[in-house]
């Protein structure tokens, strides 16, 4: 009886996997084309840039006007944390405690 129960449950699970989440008796993948043309007027909705490949310099260039990151000199800026000039290698030497905050 247990074996039968397991088989029934397995087949039920398989049925749900194959036919579940459908929209009705006429279930099955719809082959109907969507009504909306997703590519219609795409140029109006997105900025489309055409990149050109420079074979001599071996790089892509974008002739269109666009925003890009530029490094500018803002002078002395107080940074939140300044990395040390280098990372050192240390052993597991004793660490000094100090009560100053």
């Amino acid at each position, binding site marked *: 009886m247990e074996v039968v129960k397991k088989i029934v449950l397995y087949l039920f699970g398989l049925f749900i996997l194959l036919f579940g989440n459908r929209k009705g008796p006429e279930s099955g993948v719809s082959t109907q084309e969507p009504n909306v043309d997703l590519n219609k007027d795409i140029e109006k909705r997105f900025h489309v840039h055409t990149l050109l490949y420079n074979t001599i310099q071996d790089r892509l260039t974008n002739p269109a006007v666009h925003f890009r990151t530029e490094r500018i000199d803002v002078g002395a800026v107080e940074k939140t*944390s*300044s990395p040390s000039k280098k990372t050192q290698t240390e052993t597991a030497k004793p660490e000094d405690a100090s009560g100053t905050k």
Partner: protein
Amino acid sequence: MHREQNKSQQYHAQVRFLFHATVKIKIPVAYSILLLDDLFSIMESVDYQYNSYRKDSYFDLINRSAGSFVEVDDVTIFLFKKIKEVASFFDGLYDISIMPLLRLWGFYQSGENRRLPSEEELQAALQKIDFRKIELEGNKVRIQKGQELTTGSFLKAFAVDRVVKELKRAGVSDALINAGGSTIRYLNDESHPFWDIRVYDPDVREQLLFGLKLSNGCFSTSAQKETRIVIDGKEYGHILNPKTGFPAANKQVGIVGKNAFEGDMLSTALMNVPSEQWKPLLKQLDERWGVSGFVIDENRKITFSDNFNENMTTE
């Protein structure tokens, strides 16, 4: 993602200046140096979001909106709940609304025209200090008009705990973070069972008091050593008693605990507790927060909790 190969007992160590302190992070050389960038970024993130000295941080907004509720994030609420728990346990001897008193003593201004506050000025400042007047309502916080909070006694340590969380997530089991010498958080495993920590005399520079061998926890210490102001030729430490308004009498406190955030708050609070009250109090602290510690009082008498000397060495 960051691991290269297994090497032991050698560490990448990098130092940066954060939270007005020198912060060093050490990770085994088996891990990439890039991990250090990630870890310091975590501390910077905490700094930007919560440091009361940073414009537009949550605590700064709360201070500037005194008298009105400010919507904050879950972390801020978590911080306040833990802070209030410690403040309540010490009945106000630890209080983050102590900023008016710090300003009165001149800790955030130039040394010119510093003078001892008068009794009236002290009383006026003390009226504004009361953690019980910090209201929490859901995800909103309000302090009373005239109150001002400071994150100086806990935020750096909280950031250190965040770093440790990330270290564990990255699979690092042997590491150390030394934040200003006052918060030293460490991870250990079988290959490196303990870190050596040196504790120095608060009055004699570079005079070693004792060493500690510690494992998987945090050593937090508070002292009146170097952050002082001078008024009429006399030095006053920066850890003030929120009840009397005067600098704490104890010279140094050290706490060995499970995490940095609690340790930092507890060590600050204990600076205001007379040493004769320590023994019974430390038993309660051990039961509640799992900590042990020592105090050096104004007469240089050292009191240890019962189990503290298990960690001590003379090296």
